[in-house]
């Protein structure tokens, strides 16, 4: 079995394991390449019919292309799409201008809290990967979150031999990370092999493309001529810059990602 098949099988196993344990689950779809791959894998895990909602946290600041892609493939793939916004914060004028930390916390973390409170999910699938950020390298496949959504990274449960954490009293929900073992390059090679559709922002237009996408004001494009998946893979192989180097919330101040994640950020 080659490494992409191995990763695919591992992810499908984990997706099914979490569904068996929790049943009341949702999958968080940012419409980026990773969570789109996750949706694809979930379709495989459940033979084309994903038995739980696909949640999109809409900050209202996402790229237009993201909204178009989301609605098109939600239809084509028969997804039970659920769009959720922190309307109150938006009404009060929350946006990146108020500070990126505050904005991410209100429009993503607090929005997620609202969605979970309304729906009572016991577990949430997220498409995070270990190689994205140093702090994500320390994640478990099944990771409990406390009542205030805090990630207690000092006391993570042991995880061995495909035996994962089940939910205990006092734990708000479990985050399930089926893509943890994938690298950025694995995702792209898999997209190429599977012929997976992907938001066009990742491909170069006029000498620029996005390597990581999210909210329009907080993502910067990189110089690139890669307008196909094949060229993009070649570009990544040659690159010495990290994937999230264009993402503002990873920078701004030291340990910002740790602070965001400790509060329940994805």
């Amino acid at each position, binding site marked *: *079995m*080659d*490494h992409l*098949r*191995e990763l695919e*099988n*591992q992810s*499908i*196993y984990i997706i*099914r*394991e979490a*569904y*068996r344990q929790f049943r009341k689950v949702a999958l968080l779809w940012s419409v980026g390449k990773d969570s789109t791959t996750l949706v694809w894998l979930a*379709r*495989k*895990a*459940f*033979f*084309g*019919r994903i*038995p739980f909602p696909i949640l999109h946290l809409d900050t209202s600041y996402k790229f237009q292309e993201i909204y178009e892609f989301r609605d098109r493939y939600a239809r084509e793939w028969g997804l039970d799409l659920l769009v959720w916004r922190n309307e109150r914060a938006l009404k009060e004028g929350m946006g990146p201008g108020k500070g990126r930390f505050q904005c991410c916390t209100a429009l993503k973390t607090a929005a997620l809290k609202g969605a979970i409170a309304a729906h009572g999910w016991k577990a949430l699938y997220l498409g995070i990967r*270990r*190689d994205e*950020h*140093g*702090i994500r*390298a*320390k994640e*478990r496949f099944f990771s409990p979150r406390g009542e205030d959504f805090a990630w207690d*990274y*000092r006391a*993570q*449960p*042991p*995880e*061995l*031999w*495909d*035996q994962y*954490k*089940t*939910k*205990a009293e006092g734990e708000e929900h479990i985050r399930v990370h089926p893509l943890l*073992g994938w*690298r950025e390059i694995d995702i792209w090679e898999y997209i190429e092999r599977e012929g997976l559709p992907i938001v066009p922002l990742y491909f170069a237009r006029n000498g620029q493309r996005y390597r990581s996408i999210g909210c329009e004001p907080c993502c910067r494009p990189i110089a690139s001529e890669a307008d196909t998946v094949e060229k993009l893979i070649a570009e990544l192989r040659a*690159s*010495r*810059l*990290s*994937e999230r*180097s264009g993402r503002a919330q990873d920078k701004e101040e*030291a*340990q910002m990602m*740790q602070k965001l994640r400790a509060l329940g950020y994805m």
Partner: protein
Amino acid sequence: MRERLRFVLVGHVDHGKSTLIGRLLYDTGSIALDRLEEARQAARELGAETGAEFAFLLDHLKEEREGALTIDTAQTFFSTPARDYVLIDAPGHVEFLKNMITGAAQADAAVLIVDASRGVQEQTRRHAYILSLLGLEEVIVALNKMDLVGYREGAFRALEREVRALLEAVGLAPRASIPISAKEGENIAETSGKMAWYRGPSLLAALDSLPAPALPEDKPLIFPIQDGYELDGQRIFVGRVEAGLLRRGAKVRVLPDGQLATIRSIEKFGESPAEAHPGEAVGVTIAGAEGLVLDRGRVLCLPEPESEPEPGPAVVTGFTANLICLTERGLELGEEFILRLATQEAQARIEAIMERVDSASLEVLEWDAKALGGLEVGRVRLTTASPIVATRFSELRALGRFVLGRGQGGEEISAGGIITGL
């Protein structure tokens, strides 16, 4: 097609694991430049010594950087021309042993690092023992900080003998013992000019020569059922092939009950392959399933294990095991747990603790003990309230290892165990 090998880096605290990781990433060109710069800046801000930025690449938690120690296991990636690696960093501090075990349990091989200026220490011994308990047989020894002992052959030889003896005592034989300096980059990617007396491989060359992990294809079929779905009026049972070959049309026995059934089809999304191999997560539909209890925890096997060259799994209500305690609270004789083995769950009880062993000194602290403490390993006998399908760990890993969960749903994973006798 690229091969992937997962290895864990273990050893005593401060013997240089994080620095070695930084060096491996750096020498293989696997660090993003902006991340290296970020780590350098963080090291400067905290007033850490030069070279500390390597450690900061993986020790990403604020507490880790300020305390200059690794708290939790992390995984990172690098590649050589030969293959791709997943490098699992494991904390060397005794307080974070469960994190070390979490890291090591996911590895195919291990690098044991020992500070040449300080020699074998408590976690060196403990980690070596845990590697052997977890069945990690491919071990490379890296004797680090050779720069601090003047790159002398004598220092290397004496320590190499000591580490070899330690590994032998736990039943391991190292593939290679390599004198290195992670800080100075000696014998990491290329053989060092400073240690001309050393004729062996560099660390990367030794890693490249480790055999790829083999999947148990040539063993009798093991397919533990993970879940069952209803699709278009059809029942599909999903699971992962743990050993052998799953074939369409094959007769199988459903354990622990023992009824016979036939694999009608193998299902993946959009395809129905004729066979599935170890590691593949697939679904099956079953003919002759009327009246059969088929759900999570049942295991599909070959119908006549006795006629096979290798015995199939056993159906048991008790076994002996090496048990590694994962909680500070410890475990007590007679205590009840939820045992989780592959997809099976059963109520289990510690029937006897034949030996209580100190995981660092390997000394038997007590025979017929009443309890196991936080950092101890026990040779125990467990009984289960319902029959389970199991093998000895040495026969098949997937059915030979388990965890014990404490609490109503077994949610607190309190021990990991390896089955030694049925």
